Every structure is written in structure tokens, then in C-alpha cells.
């Protein structure tokens, strides 16, 4: 008898005996119906509860925070208390009804009920004040940045309490992009000083409250941050790009953390995509990375592709490769 999706995932990340590749996001049932709007609709803009304006221009693949002087929320880091006001966390039955109904419909033997959390603490910093301001503030106003990060962390923990109480999730899928395609945005030392403590608190809180799996999304280079990912309790790094040398990471850290990705979305998910390109990339990833501590997956941070058909095509190619390799 085949292992369930959940069992197969556990065998894969624990170094056991999976009977096939975990196929992309199949082990997660992601609950996106939580209160509060996360995304602008294509062609529109909206202001989130923190006051951050997001714009999704027509024809683009995603939304951008707007940081001209008029829209920037945090205009002076030394006066962050004046500018940054955490929104009230929605706790009513009504607001959570859709998410709760979704969670109740999931068969926990088969899949992990997965709560979606985004943006993370690092992204919040630059959404509030722009990337340039945020990165320079780490040098120029470190005390204020520590305070701001602490404040954002407290908010995340307060939100986590409600999320856990409402959904009793098995897993958390947490987004926070920590790098470009070739490099982490900040040095490991700076990451260790500012963001590791925040994430240790956040992820250990989830673990202490019944969450079995922490999946962290960063579709970037971040190989230099993997030791910190392990230290903060991440079980699976989703979004690992080929620039990280994933097979090498698996060799070095497999057993402490697993890697999900290695199929760069930019390479397979574009208007002129073909099933051949997808199959080639899937096969390369699976053969190079192997059967344990690895989940073949597009690096994109949710279970779909920007161009219709690519995600499903990759899933089919993974099943086919499973039949050959297992």
C-alpha cells in the first residue's frame, strides 16, 4: 500500500523510506482564508491594515509595496513609534469562519493543515520603509531597528496565538524572502544579530503549541543562512534556488533540515514554456538532489504557476520521475 502524502513527507524529511518523491505542495492543504486581505487584485492597489500601499499594475506578475514619499509608512526610523501602529488582530467567529471551515474539511491523516503567514519580519521592515532605508537603518540606527523588529515579532506572536486557537494547524508556511537570486540581502552576522532572535521566538512558539512542521519560503539564495534556519527550527526551506547548489546543501545539512524547490520558476514558468523544458528541469533536480531531504518543487511561494499549466506539468513530470527512480 502506498504511503499517504503525509507519511511520505515524514519519511522523506526524517531519512526513512519514502515510496516516491513528495510532489511539490501536495502534503500541505494551505488555509488562505484567514481574515485580512493579503494581496491586491491584478490591476488595482490597496492599503493593508499597517497602512502599506500595495500596487499590482496590469500585466505584472505580482504586487509591489509603494515607497514614494507620499506612501512610505515609516519616514524616520528613529521615530518609528509615531509611524508604525500594529493593526488590531481580528478574533471574531465570523471573520475566521471560512478558514475554520476549510481546516475542518482537511483529512489530517493525508495532509498537513497548513496556516499561511506572510509577510515575515524582514519583509515587514522593508515594506514599511523601503529596502534601501531598511538596510541602511541596520547600520545607522541599530537600536531603533532592534526595537522595531521586537515590535513586529510581538505582533506575529499575538497573531500566532489566534491562528493556533482557531485552526490548530499541523504546519506553518511562513514567507520571508531573505535574498536575491545570488546572495542574501544582509550578511550572516547581521542576520544573526537582528533576525535570528526574532525567528527563534516565533518558530519555537509555534513548535511549543502543537505545530509539527515549519516550512519557510525564501525563493532566493540563502545557503549562507542555513545554519540559522536550523537553529530557529525550520524543518523545510521552500524556494531553494539552483544558485544555492542544493545537492551540496542536502549532503551537508540533510537530516537537520530539508530542501524544497531546485526548479527555478524563472527557468520554467514563462510565456513560451514547454513541457520539455519542465521535464528536463524536474529530472535534473530529482537526479541531482536524490530521494531524501528533498522535495522537487517550483520555487514560487504557492501551489500554482504564473503561466497556466506549468505547475501541473511539473507535477506530472515529478510522478513520472518517481516511477523511474523509486
Amino acid at each position, binding site marked *: 500500500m502506498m504511503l499517504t502524502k503525509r507519511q511520505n513527507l515524514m519519511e522523506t524529511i526524517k531519512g526513512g523510506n519514502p515510496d516516491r518523491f513528495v510532489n511539490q505542495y501536495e502534503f500541505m492543504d494551505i488555509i488562505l482564508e484567514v481574515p485580512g486581505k493579503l494581496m491586491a487584485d491584478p490591476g488595482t492597489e490597496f492599503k493593508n491594515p499597517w497602512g502599506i500601499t500595495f500596487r499590482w*499594475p496590469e500585466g505584472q506578475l505580482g504586487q509591489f509595496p509603494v515607497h514614494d514619499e507620499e506612501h512610505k509608512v515609516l519616514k524616520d526610523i528613529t521615530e518609528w513609534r509615531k509611524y508604525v501602529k500594529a493593526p488590531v488582530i481580528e478574533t471574531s467567529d465570523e471573520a475566521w469562519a471560512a478558514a475554520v471551515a476549510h481546516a475542518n474539511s482537511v483529512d489530517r491523516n493525508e495532509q498537513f493543515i497548513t496556516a499561511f503567514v506572510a509577510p515575515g519580519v524582514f519583509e515587514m521592515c522593508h515594506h514599511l520603509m523601503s529596502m*534601501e532605508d531598511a538596510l541602511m537603518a541596520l547600520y545607522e540606527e541599530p537600536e531603533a531597528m532592534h526595537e522595531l523588529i521586537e515590535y513586529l515579532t510581538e505582533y506575529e506572536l499575538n497573531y500566532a496565538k489566534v491562528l493556533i486557537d482557531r485552526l490548530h494547524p499541523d504546519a506553518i508556511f511562513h514567507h520571508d524572502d531573505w535574498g536575491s537570486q545570488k546572495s542574501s540581502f544582509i550578511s550572516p552576522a547581521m542576520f544573526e544579530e537582528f533576525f535570528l532572535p526574532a525567528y527563534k521566538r516565533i518558530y519555537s512558539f509555534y513548535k511549543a503549541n502543537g505545530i509539527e512542521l515549519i516550512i519557510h519560503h525564501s525563493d532566493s539564495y540563502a545557503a549562507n543562512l542555513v545554519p540559522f534556519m536550523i537553529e530557529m527550527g525550520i524543518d523545510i526551506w521552500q524556494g531553494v534556488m539552483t544558485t544555492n547548489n542544493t545537492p551540496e546543501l542536502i549532503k551537508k545539512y540533510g537530516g537537520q533540515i530539508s530542501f524544497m524547490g531546485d526548479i527555478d520558476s524563472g*527557468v520554467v514558468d514563462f*510565456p513560451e514554456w514547454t513541457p520539455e523544458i519542465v521535464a528536463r528541469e524536474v529530472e535534473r533536480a530529482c537526479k541531482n538532489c536524490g530521494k531524501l531531504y528533498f522535495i522537487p518543487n517550483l520555487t514560487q511561494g504557492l501551489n500554482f504557476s504564473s503561466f497556466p499549466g506549468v505547475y501541473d506539468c511539473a507535477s506530472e513530470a515529478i510522478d513520472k520521475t518517481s516511477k523511474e527512480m523509486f
Partner: protein
Amino acid sequence: MTKIEEVKAKVEAGKAKLVPDLVQEALDGGNAAGDILQGMIDSMGVVGDKFSAGEIFVPEMLMAAKAMSKGVAVLKPLLTGTSTSSLGTCLIGTVQGDLHDIGKNLVSMMIESAGFKVIDLGVDVSTEKFINAIKENENVTLVACSGLLTTTLPAMKETVQSLKTSGLTGFKVIVGGAPVSQEMADEIGADGFAPDAGSAAVKAKELVSA
């Protein structure tokens, strides 16, 4: 350590608050403004190399550029008449359909620190806008096109080819961004490619000096 060496060290270390006073001290000590400027340009070259090598990260590069620009502000009144931008004018923009600007801003900063006058055309820049900017600005020696998305590579190709067939002359075209490679740059007819902001400044100088 001479005063200019001190300025250089502090620019490299990104000490934006210390550099203006040090530049003033260097001037008071009889150093020529042009020599101090050149010292800072050299420092930014070192910063760019370290960034390319992965020894430093974006915050360190931003702080070094800020330190340099504070130093240049002290020199500015003394440099009028001569130019702070001996390498000419660089037009830079993210190509049409692409709104990513962080990489482009870093490149812009590093190219400016290398001695160009930089005119930033912003994001989602159409071919016409690039071409009009070449016509409207003096001494354009370099046009830099940035793109992060695989989906905007066709727009980059169109931009480069239109620039090359526009009949306008006197400038080189450099391209960069995550999905861009040397191979792709060659294929679309760009004069140069750089994989990151540090090497973009090096390549930019090389292209206009050639």
C-alpha cells in the same frame, strides 16, 4: 596614514557621518579636490569588488555609497567648472514591463560612484523613453538596461536592438539583471553585461574607455 587614505578607509567602511569632516581636513591640509574625489572613486571600486566576491552585502554597499556622496557634497563647490563626472552621462532604467528597481538602484549608485553622471529613468522604461533621453541629454556615453523577470527579456532585447539601430551614436549599451547572462547579452547585441552592481561599475568604465 595620509588624510586621503583616511577618507578612503572611511568610505570603504561606510562611515557616512565621519567622511565629510575628513574630506574637509584633507582639503585644509592642501589636497586637491580632484585627488580626494579620485580617492573616493577608488574606494568604491574596492567596495564593488568585495560585493562581487560576496565578501560584503547590500547594506555595506549602500553605506559606502552614502559615505561617498556626503564626501562629494563637501567637494562639490570646489569642483564646479571641472566635472565630477569625467566618464560622461549614463542613462539607466528597468526595461518596459518590469517594475523591479532595487538592483537597478544599486547599479546606478555604483556607476555614479565610479565617475559617471547618472540619469535614472526609473522602471518600466519604454524604448522611446530611452531614445528620447539620449537625444535630450549631453554626452551620453552609456545606456544601462536592467530587468529582473524572465518575462521581460523580450523587452530588453527590443530596447537594445532599437538603441543599436536608432542611428544615434557615442554610447555603449550594458545590460544586467538576474535572468541575463553574457550569452544572452551577446545574442541581443549589447556591448556589455555585468552579473552584479560591483562588476557593473567596472564594466561601465571599461566600455566607455575602450
